[in-house]
């Protein structure tokens, strides 16, 4: 077992509980020993730095300071959430780039008896650790139920592959690490052109039509490639594509049905875990039909919300459209 400091982040304790549950379930087969950073706080998501710089970076850095203090035998912090990963990694990087920022942050941290020396930790994303530390061979060896026949669209979103100041990925716009992991599980992985396109982020909260269009493009492309489901590593992407798929369909008058699971849930299935041990069934867009293709039976989920009547398509946005789009409009 290799030890890591683990920063779960708020999403994994709430809307992305399925990510948390499934990650815990696959730690053992992967030989990961994740030690949670004690009393960590929110990373500020994409909101705090838009309000005020020093408090935002002090907020992020409290976690780095706690982690550095707790570190016994490891200096690697693993974050599964993309916004958390980016915030932690960026804070460390920018404090190295601009010592003035580091000084200010440390003055603030001193008010809470903490200190962080920029560069003393390595902030990494879970996928990076799985591909580069655990290794694809180890992943392959752990597979007992290959996902053969399941067509998966790998979807990373923005904040894990970019800006990638530390050059951890094969390509910041078209990385293949997630594809490789899913292939190691035996899945049929489509070469998904939109794999690092934006899910709309917080626009679902502040300008829904902008977000709906971005969500539609992703789901449309995955459907055109006949994916059974999408696999992601980002709580925000999962939330937007899963929980807002209904609103998006309603908005455009479409009938897309594209389940999206966390890649850790698919790893768990391939490692022979049961769907209930992996938080499968927590998604709002049912994945049962897709998983039936690999012989996985998911017990009836909690009462599904009543379907809404879609509106006519003419209320769509004046946004660029791909040339020969055949939408599922009735």
């Amino acid at each position, binding site marked *: 077992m290799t030890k890591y400091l683990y920063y779960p982040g708020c999403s994994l304790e709430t809307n992305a509980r*399925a990510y948390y549950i499934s990650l815990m379930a696959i730690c053992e087969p992967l030989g990961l020993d994740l030690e949670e950073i004690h009393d960590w706080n929110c990373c500020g998501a994409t909101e705090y730095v838009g309000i005020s*710089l020093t408090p935002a970076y002090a907020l992020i850095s409290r976690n780095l300071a706690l982690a550095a203090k707790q570190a016994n035998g490891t200096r690697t912090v693993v974050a599964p959430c993309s916004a958390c990963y980016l915030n932690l990694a960026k804070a460390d990087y920018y404090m190295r780039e*601009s010592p003035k*920022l580091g000084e200010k942050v440390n003055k603030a941290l001193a008010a*809470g008896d903490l200190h962080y020396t920029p560069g003393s930790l390595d902030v990494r994303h879970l996928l990076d650790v799985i591909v580069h530390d655990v290794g694809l061979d180890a992943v392959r060896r752990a597979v007992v139920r290959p996902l053969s026949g399941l067509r998966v669209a790998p979807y990373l979103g923005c904040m894990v592959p970019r800006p990638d100041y530390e050059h951890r990925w094969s390509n910041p716009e078209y990385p293949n690490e997630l594809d490789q992991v899913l292939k190691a599980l035996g899945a049929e992985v489509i070469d998904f052109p939109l794999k690092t396109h934006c899910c709309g982020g*917080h626009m679902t909260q*502040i300008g829904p039509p902008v977000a709906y269009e971005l969500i539609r493009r992703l789901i449309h492309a995955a459907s055109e490639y006949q994916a059974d489901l999408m696999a992601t590593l980002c709580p925000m992407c999962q939330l937007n594509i899963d929980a807002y798929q209904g609103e998006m369909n309603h908005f455009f008058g479409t009938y897309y049905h594209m389940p999206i699971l966390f890649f850790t849930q698919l790893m768990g299935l391939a490692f022979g875990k049961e769907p209930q041990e992996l938080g499968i069934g927590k998604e709002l867009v049912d994945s049962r039909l897709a998983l039936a293709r690999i012989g996985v039976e998911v017990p009836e989920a909690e009462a599904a919300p009543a379907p*809404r009547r879609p509106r006519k398509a003419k209320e769509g946005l004046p946004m660029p459209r791909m040339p020969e789009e055949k939408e599922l409009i009735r």
Partner: protein
Amino acid sequence: MFATTLETDHHTLPPLPTPPVADLRLLEEVAAATAGVSRLEMCIQCGTCGGSCPSSADMDHTPRQLFAMVRAGMRDEVLRSNTPWICVSCYHCVVRCPQGVHIADVMYTLKSMAIRVKLYADSTAPDFSQTFVDLVENYGRSFEFGLATRHYLKHFPLRLPGMAPKGLGMITRGRMDLTPHRIEGIDKFKAILARAKELEAAS
């Protein structure tokens, strides 16, 4: 004959516009308020950023235009632009910018500057950020149910969690807590933020 006409025309031309008051510190100010080394001064106006941006169609100005305006000291126009609010932090422009400008972070800086002087056209986004931050400052963790309830009440009453089928689905599937989680070291946490705010105000 010709000469006379030209002269007459010349006299009827409108007066030349008065140039705006120079605000040449704006560029410096934005760069200094951005995390790390923004490299904003190094923008060569190539337009790669706007061409890479998934949301440029909804923006008042492309990032390139906005940065030219910053350099030109057009403070008011810059802080009123919807561009930073439409930016979804996708970092496509950042990895493509030949000058390594921290574009997404500059957008965050412009948002915070616009909030400080209350120059924004639509309050939905600033309100959302502020509500999110208020909750985090109080508990040390984010609190989605509280955030959604407060934010939706003000801006999207029909999407209230628990009312919309989606909200209900989130709650029944255990994906939305109805009570917030408070961290243990909340007092020291608040002290850190208070000190950080003083430092920010002094800078």
